[in-house]
């Protein structure tokens, strides 16, 4: 993945996103998630790193599954109760609710893993220059680039400001009231914002002094080029995408994927 053009990867991401929402089969989605994890590991992302990054969404996933199971469960004739959680009659696990929960889980997992692969295998510099290659006006692309350049600056500034609050006695212990929390965050935000505004003023003066935006076009020393492997990759992605869409539309003479319900509950 490292050696591919960022545009190839963007095409891959777009097609994958469409597919994840088009596929109904939970087993198929799980299979795609598994393939993506394998792809991530073969793209130089270590298992430790991947687990560390996935940790961030574990809470969201659990929350989403619980919400879907208990609040997406509208009793109807078509929906059957599979079992009762802990054998408690007020905690029914319904078929459709479980299906929605698992589908949402794998969609989030697929999208998040693909985003990890993209950000870990693409330099932001290549990405921005790819956007310019896609004929997006360079003033917008550079706004994006400056935004990315600012992230570590803002992070550093926010950290220093937080330390300045601590030094004068705020945030030394766990915040005990909503008001204190509000003060802590609001003050930090305002001070950080003032600092960012000053920085943006300097940046804009510096960019203007170096003739930024004077002409509609500019020379780009860096040109992100397409290689044969990019074209092969894009063609493979498009073929795979069309095949899966045709399969979903039942236009291919292939057997359907069994549902989880059929596998586990209708024996």
């Amino acid at each position: 993945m490292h050696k591919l053009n960022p545009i190839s990867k963007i095409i891959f991401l777009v097609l994958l996103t469409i597919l994840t929402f088009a596929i109904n089969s939970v087993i198929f989605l799980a299979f795609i998630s598994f393939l993506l994890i394998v792809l991530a590991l073969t793209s130089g992302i270590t298992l430790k790193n991947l687990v560390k990054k996935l940790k961030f969404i574990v809470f969201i996933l659990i929350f989403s599954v619980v919400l879907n199971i208990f609040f997406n469960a509208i009793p109807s004739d078509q929906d059957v109760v599979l079992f009762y959680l802990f054998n408690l009659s007020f905690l029914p696990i319904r078929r459709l609710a479980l299906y929605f929960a698992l589908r949402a889980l794998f969609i989030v997992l697929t999208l998040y893993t693909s985003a990890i692969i993209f950000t870990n295998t693409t330099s932001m510099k290549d990405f921005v220059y790819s956007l310019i290659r896609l004929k997006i006006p360079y003033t917008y692309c550079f706004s994006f680039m400056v935004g990315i350049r600012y992230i570590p600056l803002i992070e550093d500034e926010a950290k220093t400001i937080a330390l300045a609050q601590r030094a004068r006695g705020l945030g030394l212990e766990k915040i005990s009231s909503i008001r204190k929390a509000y003060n802590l965050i609001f003050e930090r935000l305002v001070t950080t914002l003032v600092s960012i505004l000053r920085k943006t003023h300097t940046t804009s003066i510096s960019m203007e002094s170096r003739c930024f935006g004077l002409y509609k076009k500019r020379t780009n020393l860096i040109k992100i080029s397409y290689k044969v492997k990019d074209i092969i990759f894009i063609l493979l992605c498009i073929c795979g995408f069309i095949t899966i869409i045709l399969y979903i539309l039942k236009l291919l003479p292939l057997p359907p994927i069994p549902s989880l319900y059929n596998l586990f509950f209708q024996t």
Partner: protein
Amino acid sequence: MISISSTPNNALCFKNFSFIYGNDKNLRPAISEVNFNLKEGEILILAGPSGSGKSTLSYAMSGLIPWRLKGFMKGKVEIFGKSVWDYEFKDLCKIVGLVKQNPLDQMVTFTVKDEIAFGLENLQYPKKEIEERIDEISKLMGIDHLLNREIEQLSGGQKQLTILSSFLVMKPKILILDEPIAFLDQQSESLLLDRLYKLTNSKEFKLALIIIEHRLSRVANISDKIIVLNDNGRIALKGKTSDILSNKFEDLKSCNVRVPWLINVFSNFKKIHKNHHQFENITNFQNFLKFIDELDENNLKKLRQIIIENEIKPTTLKRFEEYEQKIKFGELYVETLKNKELWARKTNKRHSNAIIETRNLEFEYPDSKIKAIKNLSITIQKGDFIGLIGPNGSGKTTLLYLLANLYEPTSGEIFFNNQNLKDIDPYTYARNIGFIFQNPENMIFKPTIKEELLYGPINFGIIKDVSENYLSKLINLIGNESLTKNPFKLSWGQKRRLNLGSVFIYNPEIILLDEPFIGQDQRTIDSLIETLYVENKRGKTIIISSHDYHLLLKYTKRIMELNKDGTLRDYDKNSNYFKKHKNLGPIILLDKINDRLNGVE
């Protein structure tokens, strides 16, 4: 391209120039009646206190005024003999470059090469020419080995050289540098000044260079002209550098700028002689050494005393009393707090005089395998005044954060009054530490000056001890401003003094300052360091990190030098530091005088 008109030598010419910003409701001129001219190949130093209009003048020189920043303009600005109104802004961009103070805030790309190419790409130069120019300028500035380096991996000096190259590559005819050495350590500063000097002597560039800097001691020797602005945005002093340093030196000293120390010593020496006209003016170090050879024993002793008083140890603080806005914290401490803390301080005295002690202190940033602080064991005595020096990235700020308990050490221990920091309540410890951050705005959190001053006392739960009377005294420190004024609207120097006030209000025992002088004018720097000097005499323990080793050597009791590998060299007394660093000018002079005196004896 710009065709240079009939007076090709005159790069800049200002005639009765005044400017009021369009958003200034009070219609106060930021710059008034400015007249000067600058020729190609000349270097001009522009100095003055904060708020005197240096930046405004630099915007007018670069064409941002009137083309980008709107307001009311009076008088004439000519660039290469042509009125600024006769240019289009895009033409001005090509001939004038404006480099601001902080290089990191100006960078927009990810690598050195991309950054240097940025301007030429915008001007649609062909790729081949861009490559050639990058090659040429990077070699000239000595950064050709860094071209593919990520911006984040550069040192402070390398970043400054990169942003400078990104302007020079466009081959401007006029280059304006706004405090280019403010963020640099001694080594990077020498490197930059050396490159600038080479550049202005280069036949190809023939630059008219404007350096905004109040520390004339650093840049005067490479300049041709000096302009000093006053608080009202008017020219207080202007002329050829050689003339000002020789004949108007006393005027220059009264302008609140850092004067070259060598000339200051010589000027003071001349003052004590009735027949001072017998001495020729000396502005050069080598000539000064020759001058020492000619002096008799009596004069040698007098000169030695002057050097010690002016450059080594401040024996008096007469000048401190002369400042317009006097800072006398001694009168301002809250009496009730003083009494409350008396007991605590007395109990501490039972043990030893060590106020802070570190044992095998180490610190490693998360996800970094490099130790920012390595096996550091130091003892800081009560009443110490320590100057912390070291190159960029040597861990000075990290050490201060560790001492202030803002960072937790990776290993090792810190003791405060012989008690392990881990066993001390964080509020109690924070109350004993006053921390001044590099950027004054980073420690302003409240919408009014009053709330800002009371921020610490409220958080520490001692608000009842602060009386209204005390607050009104503190406000004098900031400069007779209304307590309800928004702190962000104060001048840069006032913000720094507000920081001091907001820390002094809870009477901490130790004051830590991280690069407090950056971006401050000479008046604020002088009042700040001398206030700290007085406070130290009154018993406060002070640690101050700065690149301004000249100031630190003069005022502090002890110098600690951090090295790039996170280790530390501790010099018990300034004299020891001087012994190790014989390349420092005043020490060379003192050695020479002592050698001569020994010879005479």
